[in-house]
């Protein structure tokens, strides 16, 4: 050392006053602080684009049409008393639940079929079946709209060829409801298929072999091995799909714009119609907020189940 003194390695020199760490320095060096700083950009993004709009929507929903006076829960009360909105609640639930159930069933069946196709061919089929999911939804829905056209559509042409009369696909309430659900199922099934296929591949083959030796046949293997092993993936995909389907806008807007007689309106399209087209933004905000308690309720139970099962079975 320059001054000729030496300090043995590993022996700390007495702390000088200048070397003492301040509270701020200690805070900055904590792992939790580093973690927080690394997450900060994401937190800011979420705050700007999720939390602020959510609270702003809540604020808006409590104003009058001219947005000049606070009306409390008046908009919600008004909506609940309206027959059209009661139809919207019914159609939203029908649309979301039926679509999700059908997508889950079809996706599961397709994933199973796919799982049993050997190697190279599986890739081809997987690619083909993913097509509906990768085409921009608005574009593919336009094609469906053309196919459902009462005068010049492909479906009616086929029906005519077999001697059947034209069907007003998008002109009659229940048929139009069926059509919107069908298009949503067509679009969303590949997502379920690909998730379930990944889940199926992660089930250890030896569990099936053990079940076969224990005496299980095909259906029993499905019930006692496949489904319990896939419960978490099924729950999460259903929840995710439920959220996106409830909030669906494109399909209904392009196919029917909510008609006929408001029978196909869902929360998002009705909020658009009331809030943007009719200029009653607070009422539109109140409409869209109706989705929140329904989805929060579903999310709470699904995620609680997932956490419990993960604790139970994770090795």
């Amino acid at each position: 050392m320059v001054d000729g003194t030496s300090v043995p390695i590993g022996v700390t020199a007495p702390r000088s006053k200048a070397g003492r760490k301040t509270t701020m320095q200690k805070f900055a060096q904590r792992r939790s602080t580093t973690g927080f700083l690394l997450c900060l950009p994401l937190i800011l993004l979420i705050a700007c684009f999720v939390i602020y709009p959510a609270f702003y929507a809540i604020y808006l929903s409590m104003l009058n049409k001219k947005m000049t006076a606070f009306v409390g829960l008046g908009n919600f009360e008004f909506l609940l008393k309206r027959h059209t909105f009661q139809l919207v609640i019914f159609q939203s639930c029908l649309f979301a639940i039926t679509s999700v159930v059908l997508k889950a069933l079809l996706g599961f069946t397709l994933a199973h079929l796919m799982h049993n196709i050997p190697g190279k061919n599986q890739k081809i089929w997987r690619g083909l079946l993913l097509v509906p999911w990768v085409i921009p939804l608005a574009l593919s829905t336009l094609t469906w709209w053309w196919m459902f056209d009462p005068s010049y559509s492909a479906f009616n042409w086929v029906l005519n060829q077999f001697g059947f009369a034209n069907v007003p696909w998008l002109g009659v309430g229940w048929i139009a409801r069926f059509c919107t659900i069908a298009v949503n199922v067509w679009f969303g099934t590949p997502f379920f298929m690909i998730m379930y296929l990944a889940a199926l591949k992660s089930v250890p083959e030896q569990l099936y072999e053990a079940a076969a030796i224990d005496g299980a046949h095909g259906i029993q293997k499905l019930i006692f091995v496949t489904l319990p092993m896939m419960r978490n993936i099924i729950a999460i995909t259903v929840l995710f799909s439920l959220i996106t389907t409830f909030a669906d806008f494109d399909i209904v807007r392009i196919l029917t714009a909510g008609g006929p007689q408001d029978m196909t309106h869902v929360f998002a399209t009705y909020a658009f119609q009331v809030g943007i087209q009719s200029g009653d933004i607070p009422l539109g905000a109140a409409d869209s907020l109706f989705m929140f308690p329904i989805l929060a309720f579903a999310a709470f139970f699904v995620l609680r189940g997932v956490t419990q099962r993960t604790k139970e079975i994770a090795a």
Partner: protein
Amino acid sequence: MAEVSVRKVVKEYDGGVQAVKGIDLDIADHEFVVLVGPSGCGKSTTLRMIAGLEEITSGEIWIDGDVVNDVPPRDRDIAMVFQNYALYPHMSVFDNMAFGLKLRKFPKDEIKRRVDEAARILDIVPLLDRKPRALSGGQRQRVAMGRAIVRNPKVFLFDEPLSNLDAKLRVQMRTEIKKVHQTVRTTTVYVTHDQIEAMTLADRVVVMNHGVIEQVGTPNDLYHHPATRFVAGFIGSPAMNFMPCRVQDGANGGLDVRVSDSIIVPIPPARVDRYGKFKGKNMVLGLRPEHLFEYHEQGKPGWSRVEMLVDVVEPMGMETMVHYFVDGAPICARVDPATHAAPGEMMPLTADLNQMHLMEPDTGKVV
């Protein structure tokens, strides 16, 4: 409980690769047979074909007097313990063990009685309500065995059940498995690559290599009378020493084995007739490490003394392994731990040639 027969069984995979090449094996009722061999020898494939998890390309498998080639696993009345346990992670220990019985629609009381009984035998009664996740490796293996026991099947199949356990637990579980077999006496086929497991557990050991059976016999048979060089080298730890040699005329009308210019040892008189026809031929001499000794003046009369350069010394407490090279071939001797052998020094050695094996170099057959 039942007999199992494997008749000319072949397993050929796509692309023409034969994993099992026409093996024949008869397993008696109550017998504990161990299939042993290196990776890829076809032992697990054979077990899986007996289980029905693998289709047979040709040949027949008989269980309890019936051909079961086309019988699915669930109808073969067998139970199998897998290497990685294959417990259902979403079921409790009780449900795992009871699953096979539930599928077979046993009454609830009977299921409970059987599971409790098996749990008592395996000492896992306090674990019955737990999920597999909350169990240690050894406990999981016990549950897997319990799942097999409750079914009271005709045959137990074990596919390397101890491979995932640490060394200490493996020894403990080995004893448990033997104890269970002594209790339930079910015909058992056990696959392992560990020859010590095979020797300690089996009534008979089946040594497999490249899809064929090299030798079937009791552990003692295989150890003392191996049929091939492969079996001689595979059974026993440390492995048997092999040295290229030549059989030549010895003193007094006897025969000698010439290993190198400096190592020429007489063949015991009792074996002269047996080895006489190989006079002048190049052969392979096989000697187990425990049949090589440090030479002492008070050693047995007539045993030849050979000086060897010590390469490595491995003291193991109850014995010491000393390694040498003879014409480039590694040789190991298991000697008294009191030895003064040191690397780089010469050490006098002798051998019990009554335990020698002579093999044909091309076929590997022990003569």
